[in-house]
């Protein structure tokens, strides 16, 4: 009987990390579920749902030599998660503007108060060192409707941050 673990790995990015790690996991009898990898500030980061019949310590042993040779840090948590638990987003929020401290806190704070449940968030800093531009894309569920989200961010949006809130109409066919 497999248990689900959340395996988080962080380290300096280089080609081949995913292939080496997943090979070690496969050889060790683990099975992968959902996963997300991102290169953040030049760092390799990944979160993997790993189904594994043994303990967290045994899973650690499965990946240990690869993790060491790749110079990564690994973290393993037993989780209650399951596959096929997707929630469908119905709203798409894009934010961009001159980078400054507090944008995310202000925007997400206002949106949370207006009923937004964030399902996916990606953000980046574009532009240059002297003129950084913050970009954020959120997918979520508007529990209390989209109009409420729009008015919640309208004050912040008037302070030099562009916020666009659009419905997601998922086509099922």
């Amino acid at each position, binding site marked *: 009987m497999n248990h689900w673990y959340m395996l988080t790995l962080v380290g300096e990015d280089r080609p081949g990390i995913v292939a080496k790690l997943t090979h070690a996991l496969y050889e060790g009898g683990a099975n992968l579920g959902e996963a997300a990898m991102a290169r953040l500030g030049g760092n390799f980061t990944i979160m993997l749902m790993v189904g594994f019949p043994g303990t967290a310590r045994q899973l650690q042993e499965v990946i240990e030599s690869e993790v060491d040779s790749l110079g990564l840090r690994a973290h393993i948590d037993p989780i209650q998660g399951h596959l*096929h638990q*997707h929630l*469908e*987003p119905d709203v*798409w929020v*894009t934010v*961009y503007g001159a980078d400054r401290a507090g944008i995310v806190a202000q925007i997400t704070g206002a949106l949370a108060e207006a009923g937004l449940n964030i399902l*996916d968030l*990606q953000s980046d800093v574009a532009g240059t060192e002297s003129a950084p531009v913050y*970009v954020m*894309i959120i*997918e979520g569920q508007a529990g209390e409707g989209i109009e409420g989200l729009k008015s919640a961010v309208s004050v912040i949006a008037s302070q030099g941050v562009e916020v666009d809130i659009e*419905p*997601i*109409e*998922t*086509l*099922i*066919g």
Partner: protein
Amino acid sequence: MAVLEILTYPSEILKQVSAPVERFDDELRAFIADLEETRLAGPGAVGIAAPQVGRFQRIVIVDVSNMKRPVPNHGHRVLINPEITEWEGYAVGREGCLSVPDYTGNVIRAEQIRLEAFDPQGEKRSFDMTGFEARAVQHEIDHLDGLLFLDRLVSRRNDLFRRKVYQKGKKN
């Protein structure tokens, strides 16, 4: 009337190309009634294609007239041997599929299409469709060519600027 079984990927037979309809008879119309009943039995499907129930003929049904936020539409349409003759503009939108449970993804489709198709009586008709309805037709016609929306997925990361481009000018 009957609700038919929906084939789901990874069934390989969804990947085959369907043949044109040649006989517009009562048997065809009875099948269409079953196909529509199957569509309505699904979770909010705005379209369905015959190969999704294992009939490999060029028949689709599209109906986007009951959206929560209304969109331009031609009502309930049965499209037989449909051909898209013109495309214009493109847009990213979210799609899922009765044949691909528990996954949705972003897909680029033409925003406006001109379409020729036969109705269940064998009359040739043409339509100018836009937006969500045009997307639904393109999704369903893909099924007739053995394609799923999974064949057309685009990255979520690039959506922001792509979307702005097509809003400004549709000639890209």
